[in-house]
């Protein structure tokens, strides 16, 4: 935490239903600038939906999302600008199949941030260097391994100079030997002061980098606290039960 403790994002009583099925019942939390927050919990508990609501890939059914104190769900709020400032890294990488590595990292900058081609290229290459993918700028997504694709996806996201970066289980779709390379890139990012919200099952990683950990199950935040509090001394029965699966970590 390098910056002043100002709240950058706050979720207030977010609810989300798909038909009759209420996935999120009541989610509220604050994220401070520069903070690394980790969301853990059982599958189907609402972790990913929470993250997708923050980026508005899902429209919350009720509640408020404040970004720098402004409600982004209010009508008339420019969502595209907001989305450009809140980057996202997906479980399945979702690199643009029709573009090579460099173009993947440039297209958002050119179209949304209106950067010049030259500038976009410079930013993209410097970020690809950060994730160790600069040698592959002309490769097509299909030609890369999962770990490589995910590193490019991270470079694509940070090329937009986001204020917040969301990670939706970034290592879940990877072969075990590729998990390390992605986590190490994320660890490096965590030291730069970027605000990050990470949905993950990597408990050791969560313990190492997080400032705050949320345990979400059944659509509510069951428990929250520092990594030490939540991961080493969980209070809630559900948290205890869930963490028992990760004892090896």
């Amino acid at each position, binding site marked *: 935490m390098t910056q002043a403790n100002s709240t950058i994002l706050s979720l207030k009583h977010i609810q989300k239903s798909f038909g009759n099925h209420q996935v999120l019942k009541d989610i509220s939390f604050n994220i401070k600038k520069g903070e690394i927050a980790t969301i853990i919990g059982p599958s189907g508990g609402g972790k990913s939906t929470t993250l997708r609501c923050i*980026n508005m*890939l899902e429209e919350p059914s009720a509640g408020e999302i404040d970004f720098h104190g402004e409600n982004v769900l209010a009508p008339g709020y420019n969502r*595209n*600008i*907001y*989305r*450009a*400032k809140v*980057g*996202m890294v*997906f479980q*399945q990488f*979702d*690199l*643009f*199949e*029709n*573009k*090579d590595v*460099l*173009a993947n990292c440039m*297209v*958002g900058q050119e*179209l*949304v941030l209106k950067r010049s081609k030259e500038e976009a*290229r*410079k930013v993209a*290459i410097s970020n690809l260097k950060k994730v160790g993918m*600069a*040698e*592959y*700028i*002309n*490769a*097509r997504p*299909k*030609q*890369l391994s999962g770990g490589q694709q995910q590193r490019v*996806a991270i470079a*694509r*996201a940070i090329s*937009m100079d986001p204020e917040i970066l969301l990670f939706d289980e970034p290592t879940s779709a990877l072969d075990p030997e590729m998990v390390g390379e992605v986590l190490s890139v994320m660890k490096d990012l965590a030291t730069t002061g970027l605000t990050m919200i990470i949905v993950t099952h990597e408990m050791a990683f969560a313990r190492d980098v997080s400032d705050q950990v949320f345990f979400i199950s059944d659509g509510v935040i069951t428990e929250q606290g520092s990594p030490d509090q939540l991961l080493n001394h969980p209070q809630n029965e559900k948290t205890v039960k869930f963490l028992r699966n990760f004892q090896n970590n």
Partner: protein
Amino acid sequence: MKSKNKWLSAFIAILLSLTIGFSFNTRQAAAKDNNVLKVAMEANYQPYNWTQTNNANGAVPIDGSHTFANGYDVKIAKIIGQKLHRKVVVVKTEWDGLLPALTSGKADLIIAGMSPTAEREKAINFSNPYRRSTFVVITKVGSKYATAKKLSDFKGAKLTAQQGTFHYQLIKQLTGAKRQPAMRDFAAMRQSLISGTIDGYVAEDTEATSFKLVDPDIKAIPVSKMPGFHATKEESVTSIGIAKPNKQLLKQVNQILATISNAQRVKLMNTAVKQQPKTDNSKSKTGKPENWFVSMWKQYGGMIISGIGMTLLLASVGTIAGFFIGLIVGIIRTIPTPTTRGKRWGLKFIDWLLSVYIEIFRGTPMMVQAAVIYYGIAQFWHLNIDRTAAALVIVSINTGAYLAEIIRGGIISTPEGQFEAASALGMTHNQRMWHIILPQAIRNCLPSITNEFIVNIKDTSVLSIISVSELFFVGTTIASQTFKFFPTYLTISVIYLILTFTITRIFNLIEKHLEGSKNYNLMANQVQVGPTEKTEVNK
């Protein structure tokens, strides 16, 4: 990405200039109208009228092609044209298209060996007869009907006649004859007779005379004089058709016909019979029979080449323009539901219109669309559109209807993650579509687009209904003049096969190129990174 937009605007510019070019043509044609006498005929009904590749024996040009028409009808037309001080141009039209061509103003006169039946007189006016004829049943020498003396002798005979003619009705008077389905033209009936699928067909004496020139093994049995046979006067004469409102022209034509004596008419018909194309006994100068393909190519090569050109033009312009129509329709139909109510209803309405368009053009044969559009526009708006332009428009909108659904499917089947990743970067709907989704959707649709191209090459043959001289139309013309049906259509089918095969290969190469290699060769690509950041990047 800019380069793609440039490409698009260039295409639109070409399309626009084409359209403007065509409308110019139309206007010019309209301006010249008064000096030209447009005469509709099949140019496929010897000895009344036929198509030839040069202007020998005083043939006149056929509108919109590089071929010429000649025959008894043409000779009569020229006399009329001369007296009216108008230059005769032949509008080559299929038999069923003759009346629509006249009523829609695409022709001034029908001189096509047509009889003034009461039914036809409801639609158009007829002049006084320019020829009287007798009826015959044409059969093979040695056929058991070749010796028929009375109408009942045709009992059991499989007989036919040309579609849409009263000849076909006359068969009913031949008691006991088995009436077969009517056929499109004389060429088809001759072929059926030779191959034995019919025992004979009803026609006029002139048809027998000219058929005998190419095949002496046929016999004509006159039925006009047989007891019990009845044909009204209108049925045994041929007259010139003139549009109902054109009373003045009718009067002029009748006056001119009165000046042509019977003796002159017989002479003209005899000349026509002698002049009609005979390719059967073609021999080279050495006296040896020449290879049929060589002689056909010599005589009709030019026609075939221009037919190939027309087919390729129709198929490629149709597919490209259809692709852009399909693209626009596909894009509109995948716009997400807008939030405001007005926009939502507006979009719903447009969506409904587009689905009507797709249903209509996918749900009706292109042949029917062509006839409706080409003759309909002329009849109701009095717009005389160039037939090539009409054909291009028809193929384009027809292809558009098919490709609209294919492209919509391509858009929908693009993985959801591609939409989401683009949204997460803050792209608008349009940016997502143009930069991320469409390039992928189109690439995935490419096999279907290739397929549509191939279909177009073959299916443009139905445009012969509006007499566009594409490959099949040319083939029909050649076959009906040479009576070499099998070799002609075999040649035509080989040409079609070569065209479709070549195009399939080309598209396969394009697909392969877009697919790229499965592996990324680090060594080969390394040069492009490093301190020299100026190196151009392939996109």
